[in-house]
């Protein structure tokens, strides 16, 4: 009996110390009333993926007067199996985007950031989770999108900035399929881009009480030679009374966008 027990204990110990590289997550999030992992909360990414999703050293910014504040911090990169697999024409276009960043980046004009860029902007966003619809609302430009999990609307009648999101649960993971992009968003401030053929599959998985793992597969046969992936942690905002505040940046870009049409002083 004792021998069997010892073997059983040994077997149990063996299972327990199996390397964490196995697929099943160790953490099980508390459940919502409808039995799903509870992803409600305010989340934010750390690091410099918003500057450049590929690994990069620190570099100067384009606005001399901003000095260190306007410079680009270094980043480990969030692209798995990098570099980004651009087709030759697209690699040249990315370079052109980077060179024309100040005039070409839609973020600078306070345009809606699209997916996945909205996730890793340096602003918090909130997940509001209900059984049939999950709302993700982003502090940047009050961007928002609704992820329907009941598959009621399979196709979007038009192309949009934030795309058309359909969600489903795979165990501990919320999987979101996003299509119908208008192709006008970028992936970061380094000029990485896509077309309106982009298809994004996101995976949100709780890895602890205050962190999620965020994984994204990007597929765009017009721009890339194959699908590719990026991933990063999402950290819960733990500030007392944390809430999204307003960053309605249209007001901050009016001079930039319309200044040339302003009435000249003294007229």
């Amino acid at each position, binding site marked *: 009996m004792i021998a069997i027990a010892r073997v059983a204990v040994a077997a149990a110990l063996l299972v327990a110390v199996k390397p964490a590289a196995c697929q099943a997550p160790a953490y099980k999030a508390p459940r919502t*009333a409808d039995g799903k992992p509870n992803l409600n909360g305010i989340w934010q990414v750390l690091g410099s993926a918003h500057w450049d999703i590929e690994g990069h050293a620190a570099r100067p910014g384009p606005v001399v007067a901003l000095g260190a504040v306007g410079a680009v911090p270094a980043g480990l990169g969030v692209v798995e199996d990098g570099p980004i697999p651009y087709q030759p024409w697209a690699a040249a276009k990315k370079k052109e985007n980077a060179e024309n960043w100040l005039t070409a980046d839609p973020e600078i004009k306070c345009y809606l950031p699209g997916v996945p860029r909205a996730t890793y902007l340096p602003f918090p966003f909130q997940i509001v989770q209900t059984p049939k619809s999950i*709302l993700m*609302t982003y502090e940047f430009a009050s961007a*928002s999108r609704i992820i329907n999990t009941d598959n009621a609307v399979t196709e979007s009648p*038009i192309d949009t900035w934030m795309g058309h999101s359909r969600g489903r649960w795979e165990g501990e993971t919320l999987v979101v399929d996003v299509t119908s992009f208008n192709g006008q968003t970028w992936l970061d401030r380094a000029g990485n881009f896509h077309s309106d053929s982009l298809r994004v599959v996101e995976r949100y998985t709780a890895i602890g009480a205050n962190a999620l793992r965020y994984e994204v597969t990007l597929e765009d046969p017009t721009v890339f030679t194959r699908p590719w992936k990026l991933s990063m942690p999402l950290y819960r905002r733990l500030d007392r009374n944390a809430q*999204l505040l307003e960053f309605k940046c*249209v007001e901050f870009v*009016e001079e930039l966008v319309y200044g040339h049409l302003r009435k000249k002083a003294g007229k």
Partner: protein
Amino acid sequence: MKRSGMCHFPLAVIAIVCLTPGSAHGQTTKAAANSRPAAKKWTAPRTPWGAPDLQGIWDFATITPMERPTDLAGKAVLTDQEAAEFEKTTLERRNPDRRDGGAAADVGRAYNYVWWDYGTRVIGTRRSSLIVDPPDGKIPPLTPEGRKRGEARAALLRGPAAGPEDRNLWERCILGGNAGPPMTPGAYNNNVQLFQTPESVVLLNEMINDARIVPLDGRPHLASNVRQWRGDSRGRWEGNTLVVDTTNFRDPTNFRGASSSLHVVERFTRVDAGTLLYEFTIDDPKTWTRPWSAAIPMKKTEGPIYEYACHEGNYGMVNLLAGARAEEKAAEEAAKKDPR
């Protein structure tokens, strides 16, 4: 653009609204709430954690005006026949496909009927105004400061605009015209989707895909120096009614010339499967001589709510500024040719 129009509700849904008509004259919002018939068999749905379930997509389009028309003074509620007549004449009068009225009216009517969606029906209670208090259905008188501010703003809007800040917040694509708070029926896209978790209620208005997150945990408002275009909202339950208190507005506000001292209290009550009663009270002593309240029954709708990216496609702002500059240039050149 704030014109009445068509709302596409099946008649059956309208009939379900169970606010009691007839006794509505002189009611405050609380009285309106109490007048709901208790005899209905319908049981209010609850969320799994026991809160009243207000969720869904709600359409607040209606042709009932905010204020009681002068020719309906003293008539708080219309009869069935009067309501039908009001609907008919309003829709005929407002039909943008009419081509009478000359060029200026034509430009103002803007485009074909199919682009508009501001309702075909008066509200189910057949009240003659959305305003329920004061009893005469009219917005109370302005304070001297309120009148001055309103006149200055109106003068600015008559144009020409020197820059974007001379235009309304929705022309600038900063806030939707009907989103508030408070929410008020506009020319189209009068839709709001309501989400609930144990911690908060979230109101996502279609214009301009703006999510107003209302915490229910009793936390205080933001510090008084932190002002927001949509203010700062806090919620609590009073029986079956969600009460949302909003302060901390910026200047200028989006609502009828109100000051940044604007204080909005909204009340949401599910009165039946297809109707969310929306009531709001406006308190701004700098602008109006007394508080005033309105009630709008919102109708459940299938949706979905579509993206409303506004700033990204705001050719209109470019056009109106370019137009103003072109007219100024033309006037300058005319003056040069004929200096008197």
